[in-house]
């Protein structure tokens, strides 16, 4: 077990808390930046996909995990990011510019959606965002002059100064760097007043308001930031798909995104990464599962969403803190071995509303 001796307030402010973190995160970064040396083409692509998911997950985590607002419509922001990006690429703008436009436009739409959504929380908000996602999907289908409708829209290859950014190695690095950048932004957010205001809104709106926090502004910000990150992920996602069609952004995608943050662990950035890895690997897992069961079971339509739903429910019941929560328990077990008490993470029954941990 590590005890950190604190002598300066900066130690609580800095992102890196102790030297052990420098070592382990350093090694992880080294391994990731050396990715092309030890990963083949297929795995590079899969890793890039996980990074994209993680960026979208960061966005959703800001909203769901830190501000406490549930969204079942994040596929819409992914779609908006992807379509805006592809549309302007087709107009001949260079891709870094279109990526910025896609991010900002998604953020703008997110901010606008927040205005009617402000009055809702919990299940009502989930339904409202779901409706929004359906509307966006319909717009993608019917606004043919821009989106190409069901025919879809090709995504031009990203090129800059003669470098092909669609090649697996370059794309891998682009996704990695954007993920790291987004991560740092979110970590900065969480250690500054705006991020604390969001967690305050999550835990108690009444007292947040009495502490001088502007509820509407904080929620709108959370929505806009969340949508912005998801839009950026959408722009990258477009390159992975190479051809956009509305059926890539359905309710299943939204549920997948939500599944990611819940399975990873609500309210933790580690959770985003664990969740992204989990979601990235899940389709492969389901494919293996289909191969190993009798054809009659494997051919059941709607098997995938059913499995997603089942996993979501199982996590909510047995490990509400997700993979990250489980990881913390395992770590504590080894740190305190042989003194680990099972009750450490067991909540005592609480009767007062104020004693209840949501």
């Amino acid at each position, binding site marked *: 077990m590590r005890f950190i001796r604190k002598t300066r307030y900066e130690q609580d402010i800095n992102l890196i808390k102790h030297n052990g973190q420098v070592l382990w995160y350093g090694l992880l970064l080294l391994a990731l930046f050396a990715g092309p040396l030890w990963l083949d083409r297929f795995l590079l692509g899969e890793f890039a996909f996980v990074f994209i998911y993680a960026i979208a997950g960061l966005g959703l985590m800001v909203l769901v995990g830190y501000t406490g607002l549930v969204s079942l419509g994040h596929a819409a922001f992914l779609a908006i990011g992807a379509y805006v990006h592809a549309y302007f690429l087709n107009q001949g703008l260079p891709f870094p510019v279109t990526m910025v436009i896609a991010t900002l436009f998604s953020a703008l739409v997110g901010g606008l959606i927040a205005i009617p959504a402000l009055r809702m929380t919990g299940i009502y908000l989930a339904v409202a965002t779901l409706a929004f996602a359906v509307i966006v999907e319909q717009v993608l289908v019917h606004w043919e002059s821009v989106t190409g409708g069901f025919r879809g829209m090709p995504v031009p290859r990203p090129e800059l100064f003669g470098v092909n950014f669609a090649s697996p190695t370059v794309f891998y690095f682009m996704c990695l760097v954007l993920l790291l950048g987004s991560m740092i932004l979110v970590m900065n957010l969480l250690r500054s007043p705006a991020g*604390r205001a969001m967690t305050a809104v999550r835990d108690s709106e009444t007292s947040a308001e009495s502490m001088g926090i502007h509820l509407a502004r904080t929620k709108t910000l959370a929505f806009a930031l969340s949508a912005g990150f998801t839009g950026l992920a959408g722009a990258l996602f477009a390159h992975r798909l190479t051809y956009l069609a509305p059926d890539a952004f359905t309710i299943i995608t939204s549920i997948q995104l939500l599944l990611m943050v819940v399975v990873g662990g609500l309210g933790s950035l580690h959770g985003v990464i664990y969740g992204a890895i989990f979601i990235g690997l899940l389709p492969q897992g389901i494919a293996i599962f289909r191969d190993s069961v009798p054809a009659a079971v494997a051919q059941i339509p709607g098997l995938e969403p059913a499995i997603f739903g089942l996993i979501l429910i199982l996590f909510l019941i047995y490990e509400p803190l997700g993979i990250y929560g489980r990881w913390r328990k395992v770590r504590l077990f080894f740190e305190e071995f042989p003194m680990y008490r099972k009750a450490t993470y067991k909540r005592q029954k609480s009767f007062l509303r104020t004693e209840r941990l949501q």
Partner: protein
Amino acid sequence: MSLLRAEEISVHFGGVKAVQEVSFSVEQGEVFSIVGPNGAGKTTIFNLVSRIYDCTHGHVFFEDQDITRVPTHAVADLGIARTFQNTELFEQESVLNNLLIGCHVHRNTNLLSELFFLPSVRRQELDFRQKVEDVIDLLDLQSYREQIIGNLPYGVRKMVEIARALCLQPKLLLLDEPSSGLNPEETDDLSFWLEDINEELGITVIMVEHDMNLVTQASDRVMALADGHMVTIGEPQEVQNHPEVLRAYLGD
């Protein structure tokens, strides 16, 4: 000039008249207590002053500014901080983070500078931390600094809530039953701290309280309420022996 002045404030919830035409004023530097049986409208008055409820009639003035219609979050900016009867802390956060949220009204940075954590944000964070540490020192919360609220006993949570309110560096502090759920020893500490808050920090305090010992010890003036009406205002002893107050509590 009074710090806070309520002029004939009333609030009705449908047919229920929770507070009816109550007027009072609180002077700078005072400890003002509100007592009364359950359902007398004490907490409702707090909710009116801190703008969680809208007054049906009447006006509330703070430093001669009419705050009857200001938005809820703006009340904190004016310098009014409050605690809640059953504690409304940010339960999944550490004590430190809770107190830092108390500093939110002093925020001078914008979202963009915070996203990039510019030096100005870092300076502000250090400044906030200093403020928080001063309050931690005052209320002896050092050993709880890193604890998650959900793991703390009720008595400590009450103190953390007062600490959070103090981090706003308010002019007026509203304490809603600060001693409820505290044991006698903690209540003694509380009356000691109330004195510190009032005299050393110069913060005016209004509290709703049932513990008459604490009320007599700590407060300069007391207002008694019954069924939404004001019964009397005066010195603690005076109010305690007032026949109307006795009737409100004990019946005829």
